[in-house]
């Protein structure tokens, strides 16, 4: 299995399918997730939430709740200092804390059903529930607005009277629900359309969908009398949680120690704070540990889904199939506060393609819904769904095979990306070729069955990362990383460390350190944790190797250029090689004290050079023309992983992303009543795919090495959710002849479309 890569490192483990080091704990129930941790004397915290989608909070009377025996603390807006409206850096992210403080606890107004209004800490769940009922909140109910297009109207109910559209000149005189206008322009899009032989223009609509992690948000805080704060929570970034809580509660960052529990899924939704500052505020008041866990209903109503959107796309191509112009206008729901992922949506819309003339405009629009949070490739699935649908339509119009059309226009190394700069090596063509070579591509189809293909792009990011390697007395290695491990990170990092140091994989024990144990780490997001973490581990290993070589020189009386580290040993070179016996890491461990003390390395980097990952998905489905029900028959994913450290977990990312995309395309949606209340805040009616809804998902690993990473790694986690929406819409068109432009393509919508065309017969 051993092979040698360009960096000269012998690779025994990278590229193999090892057993994950945290695996046994997870199959035996021993692993501790957010809600699995308890402290002596802990109280139970519960949140009172607004029943109204939009209401002014006239008063909050907590006296009766506070008087209830067993209630130890009650908090409201009064327990949080207001924050000014400015975007300031918070652990690598730009946050407007005026909004953050209002989202964790409503101030002047409740802006969505489920918005936190007060919280209690009590000695039991039952008492906490009773206490919530004793809090008297007087509301002045205001008109609400849910839909993005309606929210943009001048006469729409206004959420924030100080919100003026940014990104337009001159600055608007009236506030509105449009927080921001963004655009990118490349070339001259009007001139491009002049050259087009065929132009397709369509409007699309997508529903907001939730990340749907199975583990609800959970936090346990303990604040001592001197203000030292400990927090245990389920998060994608405990350093980010620390930064937010410090700011919201006026604490020094160094006073807060956050430990990330095992995390039961995040997909972007656990990058922000909800319960964490409340638990700390309650604990600070009660002087006892406070544990808070959201119910599933709270997760749906009060944590962030991703945007629903309205998207208009217009594309032009020559009759030979060359794309000459692409225009798009994206209107994304932000929820109650600004900050939808419209910016990346704008940048990704045409990113898989080499097009000279592109103009994409985006609007970030607030409405009376929960504030959106990141969800896997934030913004990209929506805009690329629209573009991939139009690409498919152009292929039909020009009678060109849809893969050939994509191939002809594919972005390649050196292509000026639709968002500006030139691209490095990317695997768009490779994934198209891989799909075309599958048996799936040529398998026969029957009536009412259809096949669709679509591609997808996501940037991936690097960012600040700290990780350490410590060689223990017996030569085993302790690895500490600072980004929560959601899908197998510890396995990947241990494999890299084992290969770098030449020690057996099972002698490397990886853990995720708390915020007091390592320098700053940006969160697990942007498909960065394996990419950046492995770079930090390579750096830490380099320090160890350098140190061991230096110690060897002293032990052997040799010069630095007379020793080298290779294959897990320090060896003398040339004539000296015959005189001294090579020393392994374990050998050095035995004499660590005598040779200078503990051996370790500490990688502290701002990882750059994340390469985009391109993917192409192929799907077969069948439509029941009498009921509109859609069955996914066959599914293949091909994606560029750069280099797969652990192929199984990379495949798992592809498969999981594809199935999330299937849910988004077919059945998942936030359904609101006319009263502005969410009607399906549970797993029964928020219909995520179950095991019997999907087939096996074939995963093809394409590896176009990322030259900026020592092992060629690219981020892989997000791209897989981008192509499914378009691929499924394109397959629906193939099966029915109908171009579906509205997600989800749920049975009532599909049957209605079939019926309108008289097609609802077997």
């Amino acid at each position: 299995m051993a092979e040698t890569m360009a960096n000269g490192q012998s690779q025994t483990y990278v590229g193999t399918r090892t057993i994950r080091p945290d695996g046994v704990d997870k199959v035996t129930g021993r692993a501790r997730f957010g809600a699995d941790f308890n402290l002596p004397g802990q109280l139970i915290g519960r949140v009172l939430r607004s029943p109204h989608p939009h209401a002014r909070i006239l008063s909050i009377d907590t006296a009766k709740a506070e008087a209830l025996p067993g209630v130890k603390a009650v908090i409201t807006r009064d327990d949080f200092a207001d924050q000014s409206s400015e975007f300031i850096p918070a652990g690598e992210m730009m946050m407007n804390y005026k909004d953050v403080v209002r989202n964790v606890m409503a101030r002047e107004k409740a802006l969505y059903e489920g918005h936190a209004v007060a919280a209690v800490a009590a000695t039991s769940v039952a008492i906490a529930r009773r206490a919530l009922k004793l809090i008297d909140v007087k509301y002045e109910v205001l008109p609400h607005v849910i839909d993005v297009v309606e929210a943009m109207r001048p006469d729409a109910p206004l959420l924030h009277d100080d919100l003026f559209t940014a990104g337009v000149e001159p600055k608007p005189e009236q506030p509105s629900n449009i927080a921001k206008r963004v655009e990118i322009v490349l070339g001259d899009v009007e001139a491009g359309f002049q050259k087009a032989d065929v132009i397709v223009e369509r409007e699309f609509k997508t529903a907001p969908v939730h990340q749907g992690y199975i583990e609800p948000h959970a936090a346990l805080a303990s604040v001592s009398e001197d203000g030292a704060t400990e927090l245990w929570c389920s998060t994608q970034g405990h350093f980010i949680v620390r930064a937010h809580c410090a700011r919201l509660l006026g604490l020094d960052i160094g006073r807060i120690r956050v430990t990330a529990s095992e995390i039961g899924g995040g997909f972007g939704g656990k990058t922000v704070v909800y319960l964490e500052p409340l638990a700390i505020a309650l604990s600070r008041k009660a002087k006892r540990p406070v544990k808070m866990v959201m119910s599933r209903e709270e997760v749906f109503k009060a944590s962030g889904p991703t945007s629903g959107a309205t998207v208009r796309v217009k594309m032009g191509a020559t009759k030979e199939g060359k794309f000459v112009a692409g225009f798009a206008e994206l209107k994304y729901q932000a929820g109650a506060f600004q900050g939808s992922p419209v910016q990346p949506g704008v940048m990704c819309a045409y990113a898989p393609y080499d097009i000279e003339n592109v103009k994409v405009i985006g609007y970030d629009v607030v409405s009376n819904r929960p504030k959106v949070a990141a969800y896997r490739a934030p913004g990209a699935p929506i805009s690329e769904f629209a573009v991939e649908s139009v690409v498919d339509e152009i292929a039909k119009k020009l009678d060109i095979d849809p893969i050939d059309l994509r191939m002809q226009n594919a972005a390649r190394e050196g292509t000026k990306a639709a968002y500006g700069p030139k691209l490095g090596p990317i695997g768009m063509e490779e994934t198209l070729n891989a799909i075309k070579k599958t048996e799936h591509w040529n398998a026969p189809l029957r009536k009412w069955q259809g096949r669709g293909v679509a591609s997808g792009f996501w940037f991936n990011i690097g960012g600040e990362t700290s990780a350490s390697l410590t060689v223990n007395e017996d030569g085993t290695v302790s690895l500490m990383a600072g980004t929560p491990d959601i899908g197998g990170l510890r396995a990947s990092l241990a494999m890299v460390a084992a290969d770098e140091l030449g020690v057996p994989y099972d002698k490397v024990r990886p853990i995720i350190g708390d915020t007091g144990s390592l320098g700053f780490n940006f969160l697990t997001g942007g498909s960065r944790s394996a990419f950046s973490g492995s770079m930090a581990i390579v750096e830490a290993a380099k320090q160890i190797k350098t140190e061991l070589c230096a110690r060897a020189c002293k032990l052997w009386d040799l010069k630095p250029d007379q020793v080298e580290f290779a294959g897990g040993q320090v060896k003398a070179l040339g004539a000296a090689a015959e005189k001294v016996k090579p020393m392994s890491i374990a050998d050095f461990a035995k004499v660590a004290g005598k040779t200078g003390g503990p051996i370790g390395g500490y990688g502290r980097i701002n990882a750059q050079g994340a390469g985009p990952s391109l993917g192409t998905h192929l799907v077969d489905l069948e439509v029941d023309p009498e009921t509109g029900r859609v069955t996914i028959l066959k599914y293949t994913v091909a994606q560029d992983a750069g280099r797969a450290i652990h192929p199984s977990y990379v495949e798992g990312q592809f498969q999981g992303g594809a199935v999330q995309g299937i849910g988004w395309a077919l059945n998942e949606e936030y359904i609101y009543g006319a009263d502005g209340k969410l009607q399906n805040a549970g797993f029964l009616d928020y219909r995520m795919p179950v095991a019997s809804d999907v087939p096996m998902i074939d995963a093809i690993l394409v590896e176009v090495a990322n030259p900026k990473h020592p092992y060629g790694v690219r981020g892989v986690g997000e791209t897989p959710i981008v192509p499914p929406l378009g691929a499924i819409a394109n397959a629906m068109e193939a099966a029915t002849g109908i171009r579906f432009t509205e997600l989800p393509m749920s049975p009532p919508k599909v049957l209605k479309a079939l019926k309108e065309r008289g097609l609802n017969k077997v």
Partner: protein
Amino acid sequence: MAKHHIETTVNGDEIEFLCETEETLLDVLRDTLHLTGSKEGCASGDCGACSVMLDGRLVCSCLVLGCEVGGRRVETIEGMAKGEKLHPLQQRFLEHAALQCGICTPGFLVASKALLERTPDPTEHEIRYWLAGNLCRCTGYDKIVSAVMDAAVTMRKG
């Protein structure tokens, strides 16, 4: 009113506990008995993360009251491995990378074990429908189904 005093068997051990009427078996397992391997994903029987066996029947422990289990036999994920030896399903889940975040894994394992005990040679279709009450958001189910099929082969060989 006074709490119920319940005597029951959990993973073969005779256990006594006190509970309020409204406490579910899941509450009792997690909060009173500190068996936190059973997870609460929804508290409404829609995700399967709290799956346990009750008198040999697969149930959601969030849909059973604690006071119902007096004199009965409860089996949870914590009882699945025997000593140092993992159950073949646990072993295959690890080998097939059938878990990512791992929150749904205990529920899937308990449910899969119940399946293989009554259907030693299930088809992919049978596995998918049997496990339809267990939600997984990470894996897309592919590797879970493969792991169960592979474990079935191992278990048939004894």
